[in-house]
C-alpha cells in the first residue's frame, strides 16, 4: 500500500508491504528499501528494528494521533507526520491557507489589550496594529504587508481566537490600483 506523507515541508512517498503475521513489513521510501520488525508496546508506543541493508537500528517511537496527523517522538526528536491523502485534513488545510497568512489574527486565544490603528490608517509592513495578551504575556500583532486599514473588528478588552480577523488591511498594491 502507498502513503503520501508530509513531514515539515517535505512530501514523502512510501510504499509498504505488511506481514502482520510476524509483526514485520518492508517499505520503500525514495530509493531506499527497509525491512522493519516491530512491537506495539502500548497505545502510544511502538518499538521498531529497522534494517536498511547496512545496519539494524532500534527505534523507540512514541506516537499520538491528532486532527492534523501523528505527532511522533523518535529517539529524542519530535515531528508531525501527516497523510496527504487524508481528505478531511486537506480540507482543513485549504480553509486555513485561504484565510490565515494575510490577516491579523492571534496565534492563540487572547485578550485584546490595545488597538494601535483605526480605520483608514495607512500601515507599513511589520507595524504593530494590535497588542494582545495571553497567559500573562503581551505580544504585538503586526501588519503582514503595507496597506490601508479597511476595518478594525475588535476593541480593548475583547477576547479573540485564532482565525478571527482583528484588523482587516487592504494591500498597498491593491490600494494603489
Amino acid at each position, binding site marked *: 500500500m502507498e502513503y503520501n506523507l508530509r513531514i515539515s515541508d517535505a512530501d514523502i512517498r512510501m510504499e509498504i508491504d505488511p506481514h502482520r503475521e510476524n509483526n514485520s513489513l518492508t517499505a520503500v521510501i525514495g530509493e531506499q528499501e527497509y525491512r522493519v520488525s516491530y512491537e506495539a508496546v502500548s497505545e502510544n508506543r511502538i518499538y521498531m528494528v529497522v534494517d536498511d541493508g547496512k545496519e539494524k537500528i532500534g527505534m523507540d517511537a*512514541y506516537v499520538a494521533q491528532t486532527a492534523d496527523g501523528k505527532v511522533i517522538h523518535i529517539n529524542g526528536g519530535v515531528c508531525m507526520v501527516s497523510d496527504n491523502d487524508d481528505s478531511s485534513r486537506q480540507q482543513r488545510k485549504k480553509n486555513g491557507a485561504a484565510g490565515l497568512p494575510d490577516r491579523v489574527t492571534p496565534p492563540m486565544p487572547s485578550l485584546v489589550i490595545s488597538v494601535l490603528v483605526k480605520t483608514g490608517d495607512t500601515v507599513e509592513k511589520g507595524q504593530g496594529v494590535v497588542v494582545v495578551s495571553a*497567559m500573562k504575556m503581551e505580544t504585538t500583532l503586526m501588519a503582514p504587508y503595507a496597506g490601508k486599514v479597511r476595518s478594525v473588528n475588535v476593541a480593548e478588552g475583547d477576547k479573540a481566537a485564532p482565525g478571527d480577523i482583528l484588523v482587516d488591511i487592504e494591500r498597498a498594491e491593491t490600494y494603489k490600483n
Partner: protein
Amino acid sequence: MFHKILIANRGEIAMRVIRTCREMGIATVAVYSDADKKAAHRFCADESVHIGSSEPARSYLNIERIIAAAQETGAMAIHPGYGFLSENADFAAACEAAGVIFIGPPSKVIRALGDKTVARRMMVDSGVPVTPGMHRAETDPVRLAEAAEQLGYPVLIKAAGGGGGKGMRIVASSDQLPEACRSAAREAAAAFGNADIYIEKYIARPRHVEIQVLADAHGNVIHLLERECSIQRRHQKIIEESPSTALTPILRDKMGQAAVAAARAAGYVNAGTVEFLLDENGGFYFLEVNTRLQVEHPVTEMITGIDIVRHQIEIAAGRKLNLSQSDIAGRGHAIECRIYAEDPENDFFPSPGKILFLQEPTGPGIRNDGGVYSGATVPLEYDPILSKLIVYAENRELAVKRMRDALSRYVILGIKTPILFLMDVMDSETFKQGDTHTDFIPRHFANWKPTPVNPHGACLAFAVHELTGKKRSEAFSTAKGQFPTPWETLGNWR
C-alpha cells in the same frame, strides 16, 4: 508544628510543597479555579477547595477567598509557592490579621523589598552595590524620559512591584520609550496589581547570579551558595545551575556575605533569594530580593542535600535553624531546565493545550518536579510551566551529558515544548564552556530551528502505528473509502 497547611498555588510548585508536607505529617489543602478542576495539584492534597473562576484575579489572586478557605478547612498556615500572591505584602498582612501563618517573610519586609526602589535604597544604605538608576517609581513620561537620557541608552524599564520579567523592557532609543513604558506598566499592573515602573542603566552581557538565603525568627541567617541563572528567554530564566562557572571561591564568599548582609539589613525571615548582576570583571550589583521560594530552588537542594521547603515550614513555625553556615557545602553539579508549554521556534510563545501523552525521564541523578499528567490540559490562563527537570552529577561536564540524555527521554506529545531547543543548548560548545550570559539565547540561538528528525524513521513509525492501532485503521479505511474489506487483508491486495 502545623497540623494542616493550605497551598495557595497550582501546578508543579503546589505539588512540590504538598510532598514535603506529606513527609512531615502535615495535612494539605489545595485550592483550584474552574480551569483547574482536573489539575494534578488538586488530586494530591488531602482536601481541595474551589476558589473561583479561571481568571487569576477571581481565584489564585483572591486574597479574601483564599484566607476564607484556610479558615473553613482549619489550615493553620498558608504556603504561597511562587508567583500569584507569593510576594504580595497585602496578602501576607491579611494572613497576619486573620491569624493564619504566612509561610514567608513578614508583610512589612515583603513590602519594603517588594518595592524595588525602596530595596535599592536599603542596599545602598547597607553598602551593597546596586546598578545605577532611579531610586523611586515614576509615572510621569517626561520624568521617565529625563532619567533615561541621564543614564544613557540603552536603559531597562522595570516594574517596582515584582520580578520574573513581567513589566520589563529594554529600550534602545528615546522614540521607543513612551510605548515601552505604557506596555510595561500595563503588564506590571496585570501581574502584580501595581503599575509602578522605574528605569535602570542597562548592563550589557551580564550574568545573573543569585544567592539563596535562609533566615529564622531568632536572628540566624545563612546562605546556601549561588545559582547561575543567566540563560533567559522573554526575560525569564529557562536554565539554571549551581555552582556558577563564573565564581571563584573568593567571589562566592563575597557574594554570599553580601547576601547575608542584605537579608539582615531587611530583617529577613524565611527562605529568600538575593539576585545580583555580575559583570565581566567580577563586579556584582544588587538586583532585587525575591521574598519567596524560587522556581529554581531544586538546583540548590541537589548540591547541598537540603530540603528548602521543609526549612521554610519549620522557620514559619518559629523553630530555630538547625543548620549553621559551616554545615553548608556544595557537592557535584546540578542543572535545571524549565519545561514550559511554549514554542521555541516562535519566540517561546506559550502553547497551551492538551497533553496527549507524557513520559517523564527517571534514573540516577534525575529529578523531575512535575505538575501535569497524560491527558491533562494546560490552561490558557496561567504561566504555562509543565515541570522542571533537574539533574545532579559528579561535575558539570557529566551533569550536562546527563541533562542532554534525560531531555531526549522526556516525551510530551500534543503541545509544544522547548525540549529540543534545550537539547541543542546542552550540545553547544558555548554552554559546555560555561559561557552563559543573559544574552545567551539571542546571541547563540537566534532563529533557532530544530534539527529535522530522521524522516524515514518517522514515516516507518507512522506506518506501524497505522497497522497496529485499531482506531487509526478504521479512520484510514473511511478516508480511503474504496476497500470495504477488513483492514487485515488489505496489505496483500495492493
